[in-house]
């Protein structure tokens, strides 16, 4: 197999990754593997850094996880193109190190922080989550991350903070898909503060035990497993605490079709397709769809967040 020069991780990036890993809470220096595996080369990812983490069995499903090829080759990440295979092809131009995140809005901890400082106090966990896309397909993904709520607490949101707004990087040179205005860039997503504090909501920095590939939202992304995938914003550069509900990208793009809450719900169809069933990518029975479960199967944990709310109207 021939590897194009653009697919090889440039040395500064490689070094930065190693420094980044060495910096994670003294979790031990990263160990480089012999070289990228065939699958990694095919998918244009160079997963050379293993992360140190503990599996969180309580919040992990026992369902069989999707292959690395599926997880890194079938992505909705419009910043790199609208075809599912575009992100794997085009995300090489993203430079996930060095990285920093701006924190502002209704909180005491305003400022701009390096990724290393953001991650330092957090122990990484593996959470094997279901991911349900609004397009009626789903995967099982072994994320590596830490609870979003633990990070939120560090910024000491004020009593006025009711929502958390997240923003993706805006840089058409790194994210060529932003040159066309299919969506209103940069991508913005948000959660209610109580949703953000829920232990199931995590920030992911890796998957399959290794650093997050670019096409999966490197270096820092949200994972909210009871909501449709588009809520789980990727490559975050800004976290803002607000009093009012953030205007989120898909809700702005098509307000009839995508709401702020976007909880997985088989009882509320998308105006153009049914949400009752989903196709599990990579499953042995990929020919048939399986029933979609309310809150993506996490109802026992999260349903109380929405008690008294009309989920048909707040879709």
């Amino acid at each position: 197999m021939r590897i194009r020069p653009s697919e090889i991780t440039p040395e500064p990036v490689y070094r930065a990754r190693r420094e980044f890993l060495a910096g994670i809470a003294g979790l031990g220096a990263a160990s480089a593997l012999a070289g990228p595996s065939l699958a990694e080369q095919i998918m244009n990812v160079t997963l050379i850094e293993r992360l140190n983490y503990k599996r969180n069995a309580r919040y992990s499903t026992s369902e069989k996880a999707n292959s690395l090829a599926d997880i890194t080759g079938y992505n909705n990440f419009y910043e790199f193109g609208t075809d599912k295979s575009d992100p794997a092809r085009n995300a090489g131009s993203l430079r996930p190190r060095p990285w920093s995140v701006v924190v502002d809005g209704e909180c005491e901890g305003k400022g701009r922080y390096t990724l290393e400082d953001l991650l330092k106090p957090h122990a990484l966990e593996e959470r094997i989550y279901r991911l349900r896309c609004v397009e009626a397909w789903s995967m099982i993904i072994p994320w590596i991350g830490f609870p979003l709520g633990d990070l939120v607490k560090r910024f000491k949101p004020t009593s006025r903070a009711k929502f958390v707004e997240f923003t993706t990087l805006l840089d058409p040179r790194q994210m060529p898909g932003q040159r066309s205005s299919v969506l209103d860039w940069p991508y913005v997503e948000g959660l209610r503060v109580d949703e953000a504090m829920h232990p199931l909501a995590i920030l992911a920095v890796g998957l399959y035990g290794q650093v997050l590939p670019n096409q999966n939202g490197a270096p820092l992304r949200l994972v909210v497993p009871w909501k449709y995938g588009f809520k789980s914003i990727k490559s975050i550069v800004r976290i803002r605490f607000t009093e009012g509900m953030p205007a989120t990208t898909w809700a702005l793009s098509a307000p009839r079709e995508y709401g702020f809450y976007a909880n997985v719900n088989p009882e509320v169809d998308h105006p153009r397709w049914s949400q009752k069933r989903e196709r599990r990518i990579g499953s042995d029975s990929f020919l048939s769809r399986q029933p979609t479960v309310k809150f993506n199967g996490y109802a026992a944990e999260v349903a109380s967040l929405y008690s008294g709310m009309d989920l048909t109207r707040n879709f």
Partner: protein
Amino acid sequence: MMKLNANLATRWIAKPLVFLLCLLPLGWLLAGLADLAGFVQWPAAGLGANPVEEIQDTFGIWGLRLLLVTLAVTPFREILGWPRLLLFRRMLGLFAFFYVSMHFLWYLLVDQGLDWRLWIEDIAKRPYVTVGFTALLLLIPLAVTSTQRAMRRLGRRWQRLHRLIYPAAILGCTHFYWQVKADIREPLVYCLVLAVLLGWRLYRYRKRASRRRAEQDAREYQQASGAGLPVQPLAE
């Protein structure tokens, strides 16, 4: 002699070639299925992580493409002055019908998985499914009456019936446009091509109509002005 050779070339070379070209998308899907089933190792033909959707989209897009190619035959024939292009139209139209039908059958039998309640709900409730299904229904009588015999039997009505391809193509493009999430660029290209193909026909129709009107006007003028009266000898 030249004419015979051209006929033979069309029949034995060009037509089989176009036939094989039209089969390529199907061949690609079969190669992908063989790879998926593990009969061969050919990841280049791979159907990706979601083969069901990939196969359905491939059938659909080639159905629409061939429908537009079929509609392009007449304009190209007249603009390029290649009357022989007409000989390919039936084959192209039938291939379009084949891919559209496969798109529908795949959706029905595989994507929706034989659950007739879901079919009815989808076809009735989802506008993009409704228009796509209507387009397929419009194409059925065209495929059925594509034989020489049907053409002879229907005479002038054949042409009128086969104008159903216009609404079918419009519905097909609408179907594509309505099912994308945010990136409408690709369906817009198809809509644009269709608009050019139909616009050319409208232009030609209006030009012909105005020529007919002008000829009619001239005839009427000549009649009224006595130009049509029999010539008679003029006495000196």
